């Protein structure tokens, strides 16, 4: 059975590991290695999508246009995808760029319960003949009915599929099952799932998603990515092959690609599950906050665990990295929010 599609987002999620300093050589050599494995989709760009380069979430080493050009030139077998987050990205500057640079699949993000924000972006890309997927972040914050309601709206806008992200690594397998089952039962487009490994559940949650009908799953080499990392791609493929679900990926070549990634991204950056990562998931905090929280907690001489808990209590969402300083400031000065 070859209907299960595997996405490698090492060159987007792993960009977080490199503080968005992905270089040309890294992109070229990793794409050459991973594109030879038979993997279905390769996702490339700033971790927060095109237009993400900013003080807020990290300034890119390379302009988006150059990253897209390099990726387009070297991806020959897989489909090439990139992320667009309305608010960081605009239609004229960023979505149009993805179209011009001939990205195959444009993934347009929306926060849960905010499908409308992406509507113009989705329709614009569809008008230009692109394949568009939606991706919903922070799905642990909303109830299942809201999730389905939003999924139906996105489907009506005309997207080809919907990715669900456990942005805080906060979901348990039974919760993933419930969310994905509801979506696969109520929608007639493919559903994808992206995990974080803070609870050590990335593989288990991905399997739960597949059992519930998800047909696109995601991983990164060594699990490179925010927080305790994403689903480790080489483990995921090995497990799926044991289940006879992923015969189209050449496992030896995949190991060669993921070994190369460890060299390119530096083995000391390989993800591990720290106490801060665990607390972050307990409190439902966006995994992307892991690095700035540690950096700023050190600068302001405050316990990072206290900061993580307060951020969780205030339901801060992805993209709001500026709230970290504010919350530290409030904690240091005993100001009630």
């Amino acid at each position, binding site marked *: 059975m070859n209907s299960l599609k595997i996405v490698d987002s090492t060159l987007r999620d792993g960009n977080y590991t490199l503080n968005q300093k992905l270089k040309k050589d890294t992109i070229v050599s990793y794409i050459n290695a991973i594109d030879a494995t038979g993997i279905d989709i390769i996702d490339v760009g700033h971790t927060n999508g095109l237009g993400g380069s*900013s*003080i*807020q979430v990290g300034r890119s080493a390379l302009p988006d246009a150059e990253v897209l050009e390099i990726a387009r030139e070297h991806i020959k077998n897989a489909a090439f995808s990139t992320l667009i987050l*309305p*608010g*960081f990205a*605009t*239609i*004229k500057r960023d979505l149009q760029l993805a179209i011009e640079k001939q990205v195959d699949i444009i993934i347009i993000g929306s*926060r*849960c*319960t*905010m499908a*409308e*924000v992406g*509507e*113009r972006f989705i329709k614009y890309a569809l008008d230009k003949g692109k394949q568009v997927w939606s991706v919903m972040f922070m799905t642990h*914050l*909303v109830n299942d009915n809201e999730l389905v309601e939003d999924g139906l709206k996105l489907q009506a806008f005309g997207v080809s599929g919907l990715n669900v992200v456990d942005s805080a690594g906060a979901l348990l397998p039974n919760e993933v099952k419930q969310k994905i089952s509801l979506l696969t039962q109520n929608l007639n487009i493919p559903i994808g799932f992206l995990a974080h490994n803070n609870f050590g559940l990335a593989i288990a949650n991905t399997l739960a998603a597949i059992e519930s009908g998800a047909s696109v799953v995601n991983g990164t080499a060594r699990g490179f990515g925010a927080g305790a990392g994403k689903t480790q791609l080489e483990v995921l493929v090995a497990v799926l092959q044991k289940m006879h679900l992923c015969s189209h990926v050449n496992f030896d070549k995949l190991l060669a690609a993921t070994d190369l990634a460890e060299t390119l991204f530096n083995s000391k950056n390989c993800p591990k599950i720290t106490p801060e990562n665990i607390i972050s998931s307990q409190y439902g905090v966006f995994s992307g906050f892991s690095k700035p929280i540690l950096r*700023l907690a050190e*600068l302001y001489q405050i316990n990072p665990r206290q900061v993580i808990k307060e951020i969780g209590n205030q*339901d801060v*969402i992805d*993209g*709001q990295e*500026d*709230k970290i*300083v*504010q919350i530290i*400031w409030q904690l240091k000065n005993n100001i009630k929010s």
Partner: protein
Amino acid sequence: MVKKKVAILGTGKIGTDLLVKILRSPFLECTYFIGRHLDSDGILKAKSLGVNVSDESIHAIIKNKDNIDLIFDATSAVDARYHWSIIEPLGKFVIDLTPAKVGKVCIPALNLDVVNNAQNINMITCGGQASIPMAYCIASTQKNVPYIEIVTNAANKGAGPATIKNLDEYIFTTEGAIKSFCKIPASKVIVNLNPKVPEVNMQNTIYALVARPDFVALNEAVFRMEKLMQSYVPGYSILVPPVWENGKIMIEVQVLGLGDYIPSYAGNLDIINCAAIAVAEKFAQQK
């Protein structure tokens, strides 16, 4: 003194909130509140306040031009451009709250005098009104600032359908205004709409790349600006005063709305109206 006669075009959240603010003004009175449907929420509110209403859109202005001194346009960019083509020959003063960009831009704290030499004043965007004054404090006290970035966090429900539908226009308009007011080469605007319930208050973060900051001058400028802002936006306050990390300055401000017609969390809608009233009162006192 004799109050200036004001017409409001547009009976949505912005227009209706403006009306409530005008009723408090010692310099302004609302003679016409104009929309397209007599059963809209805004029109019903205006009627309950005893204000003249009309559903004749721009025709109400033409018919009653002798009883109108200035017009607030709170419709849409497309409509505002059309309205201007009719209003300009009438010689009436227009305060444009849409991103139509036909007039001169104004942030009352920075260039209120522009009112003396223009017939059409554009209010830029809500995030621009809230954050550019602080960005200006950075640019005017620090040397060679190459880049300023603004992040606006607002509740999804407080953003207004026009902003949500037209993020591009919002972002580019604000980026352009940062560059022109601060005289810097590059800017970026990020919008974070938060679906959280209860709704989050409007906040703006201002970042700038500054290698060697002069904090004495910056702090003085920033706190003076906070007071100046509070003179026409009572809910404006600094949440995090200037901090520096590794070549970056950061300031955070919050805008709590007055809660006139729109809830107080929607400080973004409140601040653009407060700024528009400041422009109108300046006009009223000078001419």
